[in-house]
């Protein structure tokens, strides 16, 4: 089977896409960026063309070097970590530490983001008929989750979310903080999250993965 350049279907500020971009940049994987605009025409991810690639109709979607599609950010990142072992691994060797990394990914990936993602916000506005409810709802759930996350980080963070090496947990944290700032969450209330986010955002791979650096970032945001 021929080896192709992997493809990532992504939207510049989709936090799930952002997680995968961070992992790809840490692993120094060359990939093709294919933009899918989540706002245009009601959302390009809902169109038939994209639905055929990914029946979940969500971003991101990763097409690996064998042409196989992989959906859902944690599944993609675990795959990337298993397939590309250089320059660093994103899971520790110790099985308990690995469980903590996955716990953090789950707290963010299941506990926070799904409740404040775009389609949920749209639905909240629809049923309440109140456009301002969107921000209030998102802020509430992010803050709930950040309270929990601070507790975990209190026990386990070192230089990074878990100890002193970069892990999947860090790939999940930064995009969630990006979302938090969009919804006016006061990060001063979460000092560990804030400190970690600040250090992580200085790392080259994280900078390269940032929404402002993506091909589909709107000109006014650059």
């Amino acid at each position: 089977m021929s080896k192709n350049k992997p493809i990532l279907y992504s939207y510049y500020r989709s936090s799930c896409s952002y997680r995968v971009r961070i992992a790809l940049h840490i692993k120094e994987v060359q990939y093709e960026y294919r933009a899918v605009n989540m706002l245009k025409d009601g959302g390009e991810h809902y169109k038939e063309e994209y639905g055929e690639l990914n029946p979940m109709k969500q971003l991101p979607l990763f097409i690996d070097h064998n042409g196989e599609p992989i959906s859902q950010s944690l599944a993609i990142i675990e795959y990337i970590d298993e397939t590309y072992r250089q320059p660093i691994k994103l899971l520790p060797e110790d099985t308990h530490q690995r469980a903590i990394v996955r716990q953090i990914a789950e707290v963010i990936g299941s506990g926070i983001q799904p409740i404040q993602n775009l389609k949920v916000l749209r639905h909240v506005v629809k049923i309440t008929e109140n456009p301002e409810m969107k921000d209030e709802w998102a802020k509430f759930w992010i803050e709930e989750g950040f309270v929990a996350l601070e507790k975990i980080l209190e026990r386990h963070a070192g230089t990074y979310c878990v100890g002193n090496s970069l892990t999947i947990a860090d790939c999940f944290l930064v995009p969630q903080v990006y979302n938090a700032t969009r919804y006016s969450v006061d990060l001063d209330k979460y000092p560990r999250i804030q400190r970690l986010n600040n250090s992580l955002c200085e790392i080259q791979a994280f900078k390269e993965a940032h929404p402002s650096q993506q091909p589909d970032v709107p000109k006014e945001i650059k």
Partner: protein
Amino acid sequence: TQSTWGGRGEQPHFVSLSLTMSTPILYSYYISSCSFRVRIALNFKKIKYQYRTVDLRSGENYKDDFKKINPLQQVPVLQIDGHTLTNSWSILEYLEETQSGLPLLPKEPEKRALVRSITDAIVSGIQPLQNVIVQKYIAVNFGAEHASPWTQHWIHLGFSKLEILLNNVARDYCVGDELSIADLCLVPQVYNAMKRFDVSIDKYPTIERLYNKLREIPEFIEAHPDNQPDTPK
């Protein structure tokens, strides 16, 4: 440690201690789908465990005693190998990495990714939106009449997408012919949807077929909410 006692009567303290230290403890609620997932896994890994009920309905998870065990105030929690583990998917992966018994993830990376995609579609795609705390928020802030339509909306949306995905890849199990953590997450989700949220799965034939087959397997039956120490009579 050799035991010098036999038969009934008080056990020497040191024997009780060693049993306590080595027997895993699962903090669980009978109908919590996240707890159900872990119970199934423990059965497949042939792990005998102590069951400790955390009565979510009465808010026992918010009490100080449980907060000390898990500051996140959620079930399941598994105490095993000297560690306290939380968050069901993380626990499933830990059990897979550390325990013998039936493998619950394939060896090939692309198949593993598929298993994890399906797992994620359930664990983040559906379950969080039907969580009790979300329902409570909606009932309190938007009105009780919104709670049920809300959960049904997200379950149906999640199931309709999952149906397409499973239709492409499932055979005897969610992914081909091997049992995996995807199956362990599917059954509790479907049970929950039908039992608690009045969702019918007749529009999702692949999900229905898989569910009906999987729930007959003994490890799933033993883990079922109807068969737990805290199941209401």
